[in-house]
């Protein structure tokens, strides 16, 4: 394993009940990069992260954190974790929670630094149960930063955050990454992956079906999207050759096709009043849909 690798799954398979949650997954997280793990619900994202954290033992293959077994406390002292599901004790204050989690690490960040990074400075004396949903997420993020981690696990970090909190959160993550911290991110907000990630891995049915930079993932999909305002109906457009899918959103019509040129000729001929015409390569969302559909 390269010394630049901070976390790794090598040929990891894991069966959970009747479901093959992971099926021969190989992936490596490099020092200082943001790696977004994407895929539909049930694709194996949580199992992949749990395996990297040592919470789940793989049936086959190997998980490594900094070259060691993830169950090894010394390896986990170099990471920070924010899990989607964890509910912290309501009756402890933010400051008390920070003091506890700081005690897990050899050289923790100061409470003031953690609070400033997570935007919690005026909330240290507030009980966790009295925080709003967004503030609770920030408190959980703060706990993940306590140990000056070299690798940060963020599982759906911005669910429940308002726009302002989310912007602050993204800025904080960029600052950490600029100082050399690597991040493993799972998210349902693709704009979050686009805003933060250097690389994306796409899981579908327990297999890593695509991996690469955002542009590379988009380019894997030959599909184009035509967007316009037209009086034509969806059924009419759907009947043309080469049209893969049609969606109407208000007065806008979206046409998905691998061959935009013949479809455009047809469109301009059929509706001479067509307006606001636009052709673009598929976005990340469409690319993911396509990649996971192919894998199904």
């Amino acid at each position, binding site marked *: 394993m390269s010394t630049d690798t901070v976390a790794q799954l090598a040929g990891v398979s894991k069966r959970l009940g009747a479901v093959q949650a992971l099926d021969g997954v190989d992936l490596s997280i490099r020092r200082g990069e943001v790696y977004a793990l994407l895929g539909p619900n049930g694709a194996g994202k949580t199992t992949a992260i749990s395996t990297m*954290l*040592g*919470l789940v*033992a793989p049936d086959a293959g190997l998980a490594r954190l900094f070259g060691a*077994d993830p*169950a*090894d*406390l*010394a390896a*986990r*002292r170099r*990471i*920070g*974790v924010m*899990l989607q*599901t*964890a*509910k*912290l*004790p309501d*009756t*402890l204050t933010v400051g*008390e*929670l920070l*003091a*506890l*989690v700081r*005690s*897990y*690490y*050899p050289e923790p960040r100061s409470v003031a630094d953690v609070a400033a990074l997570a935007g919690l400075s005026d909330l240290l004396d507030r009980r966790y149960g009295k925080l709003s949903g967004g503030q609770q997420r920030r408190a959980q993020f703060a*706990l993940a930063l306590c*140990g000056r981690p070299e690798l940060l*696990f963020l599982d759906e970090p911005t669910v429940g955050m308002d726009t302002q909190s989310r912007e602050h959160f993204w800025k904080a993550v960029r600052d950490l990454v600029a100082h050399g911290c690597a991040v493993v991110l799972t998210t349902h907000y693709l704009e979050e992956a686009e805003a933060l990630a250097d690389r994306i891995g796409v899981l579908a049915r327990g297999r890593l079906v695509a991996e690469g930079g955002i542009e590379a993932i988009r380019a894997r999909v030959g599909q184009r999207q035509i967007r316009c305002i037209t009086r034509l109906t969806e059924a009419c457009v759907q009947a043309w050759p080469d049209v893969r899918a049609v969606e109407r959103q208000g007065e806008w019509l979206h046409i998905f096709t691998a061959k935009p040129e013949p479809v455009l000729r047809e469109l301009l001929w059929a509706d001479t009043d067509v307006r606001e015409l636009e052709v673009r390569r598929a976005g990340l969302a469409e690319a993911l849909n396509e990649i996971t559909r192919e894998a199904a």
Partner: protein
Amino acid sequence: MTTATFDAIARRSLAFEARAEFLRMLRSPSFVLPTLLFPPMFYLLFGVIMNIGRGSFQAPHYLMATYCVFGVISPGLFGFGVTVAMEREQGLLMLKRALPMPSHNYLAAKLAMALVFAATIVTTLAVLGYFAGGVRLEAGQWIQLALVAILGVAPFCALGLLVGTLTSGQGSTAVANLIYLPMALLSGLWLPLFLLPKVIQAIAPVWPAWHLGQLALAAIGQPSAGSALGHVAYLAAFTAVVFAIASRRLARG
């Protein structure tokens, strides 16, 4: 699943973990009020105000010992049972396992919390016994009673842990109460066993609370059944077996 590590960081962290555990329980009225108030209330009612003593039976003495035992069961049974069930269900246990929490500190902190509550309950009852119940004992007897009651929290911590690994967060309080209240009555902790039907007296040695009650009575020179060694052996074996089953269940997640 985590390797056992107890280095300087882990030792220092244990103090933080125990303090956090104690504070959060202290600030939970649904735990702290029944745990700290019920034993002295019942003692004052049955042992002092009603003073059910007659003949050679000294109610203020006898009931001070048995309400100490009644009291210390609660931080073990509820302090472990309810918190472990909640933390399993709500993901806190998983987060702490992913974070570098030294694995033994999770249960050690809860044990420390239970011991502090047990000591508080025993002190309260001793003060009430002395000033309200007129209980006078040798210094050595007070110390023995305190040791029996405070160390006696251990089997109920193990039992609480088992409840916590078997129940949901919502159900855990009900299940713990279903064990706690009947067992206290059937073990002669509320009222002396000789006031209860013969059949209840006959099955009493099944319950760990009965054995701890007999040790507490013996410590202050009240009449008790069985040998001290037998009670200690029963309680040690009970603790070991229940803890082994519970910690295996906890590790499997």
